[in-house]
């Protein structure tokens, strides 16, 4: 029989025992709905998490550090596994930065300059972590909703404050459990004001001995063995912006609260914690960095770039690594949701078997007639298959609609609850088109499998017996 004929006959037969077939189809649709509801919840939560991560703006960033830094952290084994690499424990200096910047798929590579220092505001000292931002950071999503503006130039004597530091400067703390302080309110008294930064400067040219007078006057310490000195300095900086979000949220405990333009920060030659070790290894007077941030053109290329940099002999870290465990978590969650969702569908598939076996008993005579007038085993089999498949597709479509509706309701109800608890409502519910296609396809497949046994049984029916049966 041809497929349109099969479909037509199958739908006709389904209409004949409308109640029973509707109930079976509803059973399937409930199964599919539970599957869709479960999976869309999993996908929605995953998307929510990803969305938050992407908003942090550093999904496309690889942080490069010298491999040396990891010595003594129990990572030697890993190094050995990677194998001997050219330039093992290479120094992360300016030539290395340029080399990384010229790798394919790399947008830019800029040194990470971060240091803890003292900022004075209103004559009160505040110790904080300062970090430098390249001009490209301007497009970072984290600066959405920033008060004020970005640095006027890459060398401007300006700072951007993170909201929490602004709170600190103003001596305000958000009331517990209450609304967070408004960025605009925080920014108003601070924008345009000046801060004084006190910092330790590394004397620029360690190869040349410092003039004795300067050394005597300014150096706090003169390290023996290391050929440079540290000088205490002060710098006035203007507050140009207060950011709501944290542009470096991926860095966790070392995140900075105050940001400087990159070129300015470089020109200051601030003493950094890792300097000592690196400087002693530096071949020349080239700048040496403790770490470099590499921006990749596309988040999908992070892995490739990371691999290339590792091959150069450096250690890399990216959000990809950080999100790996998150993704594993969601994969497991999805699996669980899939299993629970499938259970309902499995129950529904038993319903299909039951319905079709009943149909065979009821339509024994009809099957006998069809065989007597020339239907082959295959025709009968296909007809029952078509009925099972039709129930599967109809149930699948109804189930997706039902699952979608259930999801909407759950999402709505949860958001009502979240709002009552004064939390921000969010959309943790997603039904992507592939899930729709997958659910209907899966339902169709499950139905066909359920139809296997009844169809085979119908096909094997002895026509003589079937016709005798009244």
């Amino acid at each position, binding site marked *: *029989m*041809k497929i*349109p*004929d099969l479909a037509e*006959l199958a739908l*006709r*037969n389904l209409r*004949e025992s409308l109640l029973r077939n509707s109930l079976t189809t509803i059973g399937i649709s409930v199964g599919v709905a539970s599957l869709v509801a479960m999976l869309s919840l999993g996908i929605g939560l995953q998307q929510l998490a990803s969305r938050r991560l992407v908003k942090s703006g550093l999904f496309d960033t690889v942080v490069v550090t010298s491999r040396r830094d990891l010595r003594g952290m129990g990572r030697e084994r890993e190094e050995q596994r990677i194998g001997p690499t050219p330039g093992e424990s290479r120094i992360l200096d300016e030539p290395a930065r340029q080399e990384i910047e010229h790798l394919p798929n790399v947008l830019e590579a800029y040194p990470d300059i971060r240091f803890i220092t003292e900022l004075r505001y209103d004559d009160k000292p505040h110790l904080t972590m300062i970090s430098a931002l390249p001009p490209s950071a301007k497009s970072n999503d984290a600066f959405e909703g920033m008060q004020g503006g970005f640095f006027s130039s890459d060398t401007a004597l300006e700072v951007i404050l993170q909201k929490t530091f602004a709170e600190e400067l103003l001596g305000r703390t958000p009331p517990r459990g209450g609304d967070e302080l408004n960025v605009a309110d925080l920014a108003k008294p601070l924008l345009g004001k000046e801060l004084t930064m006190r910092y330790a400067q590394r004397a620029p040219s360690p190869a040349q001995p410092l003039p004795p007078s300067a050394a005597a006057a300014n150096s706090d310490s003169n390290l023996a063995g290391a050929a440079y000195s540290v000088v205490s300095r002060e710098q006035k900086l203007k507050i140009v912006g207060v950011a709501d979000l944290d542009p470096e949220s991926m860095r966790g405990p070392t995140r900075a609260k105050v940001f400087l333009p990159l070129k300015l920060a470089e020109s200051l030659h601030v003493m950094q914690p890792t300097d000592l070790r690196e400087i002693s290894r530096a071949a020349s007077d080239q700048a040496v960095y403790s770490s470099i941030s590499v921006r990749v053109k596309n988040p999908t290329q992070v892995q490739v770039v990371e691999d290339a940099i590792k091959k150069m002999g450096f250690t890399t870290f990216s959000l990809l690594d950080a999100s790996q465990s998150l993704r594993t978590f969601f994969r497991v969650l999805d699996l669980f949701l899939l299993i629970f969702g499938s259970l309902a569908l499995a129950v529904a598939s038993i319903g299909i078997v039951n319905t079709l076996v009943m149909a065979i008993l009821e339509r024994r*005579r*009809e099957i*006998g*007639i*069809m*065989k*007597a*007038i*020339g*239907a*082959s*085993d*295959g*025709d009968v089999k296909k007809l029952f298959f078509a009925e099972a498949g039709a129930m599967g597709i109809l149930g699948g479509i109804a189930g997706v609609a039902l699952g979608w509706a259930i999801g909407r309701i759950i999402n709505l109800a949860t958001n009502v609850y979240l709002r009552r608890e004064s939390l921000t409502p969010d959309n943790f519910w997603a039904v992507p088109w592939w899930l729709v296609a997958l659910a209907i396809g899966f339902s169709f497949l499950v139905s066909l499998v359920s139809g296997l046994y009844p169809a085979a049984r119908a096909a094997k029916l*002895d*026509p*003589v017996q079937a*016709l005798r049966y009244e």
Partner: protein
Amino acid sequence: MPTAPAVSAASRTVAIRSENLCRHYRMGETLIRAVDGVSVEVRAGEFVALLGSSGSGKSSVLNLIAGLDRPTSGSVVVQDRDLAKLSREELAKYRLRVVGMVFQSFNLIASMTLAENVELPLRFAEVDRSQRQNLSREALERVGLQARMNHRPSELSGGEQQRAALARALINRPQLLLADEPTGNLDSHTGTEIMDMVREFNRGLGMTVVMVTHERALAERYAQRMIFLADGKLIDDRPNASTADGARVQGGQS
């Protein structure tokens, strides 16, 4: 008519030949010999009645000829096809192309209209929809039911249902019409109407007809030849002397 050797002439026109045909089955402890060594030949274009009381095995023989059942032993050859040797698939094709069947209880599918019932074999034969509709209309016109084609079987009288079943049996233009007590559920007037149609197919379309009946009068009125069965065995096989047809076939070797 040229005088050809009797054997070759006979073999050319043989439509059905059974040799020592047996169909035994077991019911609990007892072996039932529904058909027990029946050897018979039916020539093409013949109208044969299979007679016997109930349980005589006449319907079993018909089912074997129809390819609905397989012999336990012996053979049945229809139009040069040894049915015992055909696969299930081939047997289905044989039923579809070679045989048309009508039953005592009409066996129309209740959920389908007459037109759909009649065209059902064409679906199995994968005939195009438009052609299917033409053929089923034509077949229904032939049995005088064109006005009822969109009715369901339950809306029709027994005679009308049997006419529809005849139309269905004819739709694939089979060479063989097998009728199992076709008038058993009909009153005598309607039965006559149906039998006249069957005779018309036999004569007008040259179809070979094998009809199972227990009504001797019916057989005598329409069949050219009567085969009597009892307990699965052939007990008598004789031309029907009471009809002109019988005489003609007997004398003229149509």
